[in-house]
């Protein structure tokens, strides 16, 4: 681009539109984090669901995988921040929302382990819906908006269902809120020539 070129008014407006469009389309969410968390929750749900018949004590520990998944998540976050050449206005807000979600999930897990309240699945499903819906709403990404609504609908259903069905609701919620949006994002990311 040469700075010496004299621009007409129309060309100036066209240039502004072109650059705003370029900036907007430079944002590439890889979908890796969504796939990681969606996959982890789905796996834990299936194992717990199977264990309602198998009744093997140590298999109940499978939910500790959600804490182990923090390690690859930290690695993914560091790697993505190194390659990102710009920051959006919404980035800090999104980071804040997801950190709040992580803390809320940790505290809720602690509370449910100590006090063993009835129907605690509902609390987790309500929490799952919050950052999912907020992210989808902020980025106008319909699959995540839909995923957040699925989580809240599952939360309502879980108030009236036994634990075994609740595990199925966890699976469905994790699939629609994270795994499916993750797949869509990943496909778009690879299509744009990223590796």
């Amino acid at each position: 681009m040469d700075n010496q070129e004299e621009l007409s008014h129309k060309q100036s407006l066209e240039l502004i539109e072109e650059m705003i469009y370029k900036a907007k389309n430079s944002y590439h969410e890889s979908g890796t984090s969504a796939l990681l968390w969606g996959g982890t929750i789905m796996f834990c749900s299936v194992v717990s669901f199977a264990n309602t018949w198998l009744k093997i004590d140590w298999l109940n520990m499978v939910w500790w995988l959600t804490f182990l998944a923090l390690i690859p998540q930290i690695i993914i976050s560091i790697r993505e921040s190194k390659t990102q050449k710009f920051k959006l206005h919404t980035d800090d807000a999104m980071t804040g929302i997801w950190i709040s979600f992580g803390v809320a999930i940790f505290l809720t897990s602690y509370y449910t382990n100590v006090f063993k309240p009835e129907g605690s699945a509902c609390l987790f499903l309500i929490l799952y819906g919050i950052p999912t819906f907020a992210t989808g709403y902020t980025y106008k990404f319909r699959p995540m908006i839909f995923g957040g609504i699925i989580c809240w609908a599952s939360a309502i259903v879980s108030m009236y269902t036994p634990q075994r069905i609740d595990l199925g609701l966890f699976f469905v919620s994790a699939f629609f809120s994270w795994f499916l949006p993750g797949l869509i994002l990943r496909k778009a990311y690879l299509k744009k020539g990223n590796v």
Partner: protein
Amino acid sequence: MFKELDPILHSQLRLAVMSLLIGVKEAEFTFLKDKTGATAGNLSVQIQKLKDAEYIEVQKQFKDNYPQTLCKITPHGIDAFEKYVKALQGYISSNGQS
């Protein structure tokens, strides 16, 4: 009577840089270079002019042992950009184009 267009913004590369920065919180020099297709030398000169006009902030730092230049539009720059766009729209709506 039309307002005179801001001479700082009414230049191809500076306008392109401002248009890119208006949509993001901050951007690296390499991002601006990639998107505008300008040479590093020319871009540096134009960024300096925008900085002198206080339309953008420039922060130089190191990231993984490599120098990194971050550019960010200022509130003054946003104001100037909005006025420029309104003035352009005024020109175009009144007489088609210049």
